[in-house]
């Protein structure tokens, strides 16, 4: 239990220099002292602070982004020339499987989790998430799961069945290496991480909001993340079932997908896509949330139709449950099912279109400030619209039947994922970097970063539509010279362009990484409120103090921070919003009311110990069940350590409330 003590006579300054941390070590399991170090590696490994966990999520996800990106470049190199031999056919299968798996499960989702972890508590005015130790557990499970999954490269080859791992192709017979086992168990571990984090964040948003923050006062990013967590909560158990069935078949000889015994391979497809389609929205909605913060800030206008954006986000979340079979139009579902799912899929375009309209109308008439964050956000509107429109055409089953499993589909979903989700995350990087690290990313490098990625995305993925229409199948390791065709639509030309484009994106990402290093080394301290922002996370120091807010603010409106800076003043031209206070003044007013007793959760050993148990169990399932027993023992140790560890210090550790000053505590720490 870290107790931040501050005498009311000495108000803390904006920079936080007045805060001193008194740490009360309590013992874990009656043996170990609590890991209360505030600096050094221990401060990170045993932390339960949502901000540190968010940063760790971000760094690990970025690492996997580079890994997945390298895999993508190898795929494009292989396809750059006819009958190419950069990769063998087997390695190529592993490459595209792991590229997709890495990008979806180890980059986009955890990067969204990084933003959610860091900003959700700040945006709702909380001091931490509802269960800080569970939060740490989620991160370590994600990290260990990701590492476990990727060790398969060195232990006999990675999974090679494509990211949706259709049966019976995923059975022992067709995929004899341990790759699929690693994939199944790795995703199982990462799935637990996401499930735990989903429960945690939903409770945080519903229960931990600052006084006065009604649901319809929450920033759109918080709303979109909330919808995503509900999708995760209900979609993950479905993939969990599918993964269990597959691993029971591969490791224990169950019959689930054994066609010889009368199995129906469509069972896997249904289970996978019941999860897989909500997963699509899990990927895209955080990015929608980010740009819904960025666009109003840099248009100097409130978001157009806040309620419509929120409700359409929730509607996407709901309707997203009724469209999964449009991934299976070519599988012989029968005409009735196809027609039903076709119509449902067209319906879901409506709420998405509502959002695009709202964003565009937010820009309309605004005083636009083309910062890098803003440019990425506008890039999302443009690129996502292209990907979304080609997506609607796939709702038409006859057209989809022709395009299924061609490069056309690859082009479509990369527009949505790279153009929509990844560009949105980059917008978030530029927008929130000064909040997290107290330094502004270099705008000049940022602009180069943006334009290279923007052109790169179009160069890479637009030609894929043409390639697909010309008949190039998805997942084909080579395209033969004699089938390239002639003239404008020949495969050779567009494949070269796509490869060129992929390296352009890579250069853009490299510039971002250079920008990060450059900023860390050279940049000075960012102003407190560099973008004249609107939402609560900016109403605190940058980077925020450990306890986020000196006093929990009372919320009166949407865009609370903006309304504390700006007030309506009557001028000769009628009433106008005029800036009446600077961000520093708003903060100083909060400082003056600073709480004297702030109780923060203590660091803990047990999340990482508990998390460590699972990959050991997973290795055991693959190689020797005895190892699983060891893993289970580690897990059990973690569980019992966790249960017996007091997450809240004894009452005697607290000072009795001083006269006149109010004691405010985190309502829950875990």
């Amino acid at each position, binding site marked *: 239990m870290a107790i931040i003590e501050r005498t009311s006579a000495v108000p803390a300054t904006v920079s936080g220099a007045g805060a001193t941390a008194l740490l009360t070590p309590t013992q874990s399991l009656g043996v170990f002292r609590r890991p209360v170090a505030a600096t050094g590696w221990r401060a990170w490994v045993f932390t339960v602070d949502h901000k540190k966990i968010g940063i760790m999520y971000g760094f690990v996800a970025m690492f996997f982004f580079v890994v997945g990106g390298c895999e993508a470049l190898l795929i494009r190199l292989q396809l750059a020339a006819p009958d190419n031999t950069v990769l063998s056919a087997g390695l190529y299968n592993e490459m595209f499987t792991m590229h997709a798996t890495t990008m979806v499960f180890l980059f986009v989702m955890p990067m969204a989790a990084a933003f959610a972890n860091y900003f959700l508590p700040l945006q709702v005015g909380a001091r931490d998430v509802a269960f800080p130790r569970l939060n740490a557990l989620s991160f370590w499970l994600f990290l260990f799961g990701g590492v476990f999954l990727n060790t398969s490269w060195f232990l006999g080859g990675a999974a090679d069945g494509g990211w949706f791992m259709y049966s019976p192709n995923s059975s022992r017979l067709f995929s004899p290496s341990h790759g699929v086992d690693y994939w199944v168990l790795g995703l199982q571990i990462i799935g637990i991480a996401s499930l735990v984090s989903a429960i945690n964040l939903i409770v945080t948003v519903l229960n931990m909001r600052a006084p006065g923050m009604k649901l319809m006062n929450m920033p759109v990013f918080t709303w979109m993340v909330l919808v995503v967590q509900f999708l995760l909560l*209900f979609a993950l158990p479905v993939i969990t079932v599918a993964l269990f069935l597959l691993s029971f078949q591969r490791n224990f000889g169950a019959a689930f997908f054994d066609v010889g015994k009368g199995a129906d391979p469509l069972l896997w497809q249904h289970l996978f896509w*019941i999860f897989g389609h909500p997963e699509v929205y899990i990927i895209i909605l955080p990015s929608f949330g980010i740009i819904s913060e960025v666009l109003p800030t840099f248009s100097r206008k409130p978001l157009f139709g806040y309620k419509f954006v929120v409700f359409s986000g929730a509607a996407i979340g709901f309707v997203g449950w009724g469209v999964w079979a449009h991934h299976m139009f070519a599988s012989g579902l029968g005409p009735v099912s196809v027609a039903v799912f076709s119509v449902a899929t067209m319906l879901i375009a409506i709420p998405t279109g509502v959002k695009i309209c709202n964003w565009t109308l937010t820009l309309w008439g605004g005083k636009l400030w083309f910062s890098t964050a803003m440019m990425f956000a506008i890039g999302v509107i443009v690129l996502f619209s292209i990907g979304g429109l080609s997506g609607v055409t796939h709702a038409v089953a006859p057209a989809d039947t022709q395009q299924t499993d061609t490069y056309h589909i690859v082009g479509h979903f990369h527009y949505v994922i790279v153009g929509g989700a990844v560009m949105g995350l980059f917008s978030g990087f530029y927008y929130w970097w000064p909040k997290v690290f107290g330094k502004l990313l270099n705008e000049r490098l940022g602009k180069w970063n943006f334009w290279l990625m923007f052109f790169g995305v179009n160069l890479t993925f637009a030609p894929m539509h043409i390639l697909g229409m010309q008949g190039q199948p998805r997942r084909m390791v080579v395209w033969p010279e004699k089938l390239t065709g002639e003239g404008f639509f020949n495969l050779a030309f567009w494949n070269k362009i796509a490869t060129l484009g992929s390296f352009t994106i890579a250069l853009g990402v490299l510039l971002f990484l250079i920008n990060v290093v450059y900023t860390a080394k050279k940049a000075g301290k960012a102003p407190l409120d560099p973008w004249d922002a609107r939402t609560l996370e900016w109403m605190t120091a940058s980077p925020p103090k450990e306890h986020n807010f000196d006093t929990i603010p009372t919320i009166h409106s949407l865009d609370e921070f903006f309304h504390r800076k700006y007030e309506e003043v009557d001028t000769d031209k009628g009433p106008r919003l005029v800036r009446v206070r600077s961000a520093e003044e708003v903060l100083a007013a909060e400082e003056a009311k600073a709480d004297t007793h702030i109780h923060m959760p203590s660091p803990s050993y047990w999340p990482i110990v508990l998390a460590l148990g699972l990959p050991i169990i997973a290795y055991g399932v693959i190689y020797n069940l005895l190892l699983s027993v060891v893993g289970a023992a580690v897990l059990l140790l973690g569980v019992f350590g966790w249960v017996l560890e007091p997450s809240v210090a004894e009452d005697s550790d607290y000072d009795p409330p001083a006269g006149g000053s109010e004691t405010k505590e985190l309502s829950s720490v875990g």
Partner: protein
Amino acid sequence: MSAVTEHAEQDEHAGHHAHGGEEPHVPKDSYFIKVALWLALLTALETSTYWIHLGGFATPALLIMMTIKFFMIVMIFMHLKFDNKLFSLMFYIGLGLAIFVYCVALSTFQFFAR
């Protein structure tokens, strides 16, 4: 059944006054024992279909009894009836989604046509 329902209604009425941090009103032990007796009776009826053949009525009858038992446990033993409505919402969303997606999936396999 009427005695149980009546009692439950009273309790629900009392439950409405519980809000904020207050503990919701939860009925006495005797009430739960009554509910358990009803559950036991239903289980006995269910099991009896194994010996007494009802023909085409068996499946609907069993499904109805299953549903009644399910909601008796969820609403009374798990206090959903007396507790904050948010809990009910969270649970029923999951339950509803599960019934919806899996019934649709099974129907694409012509499961209900057989």
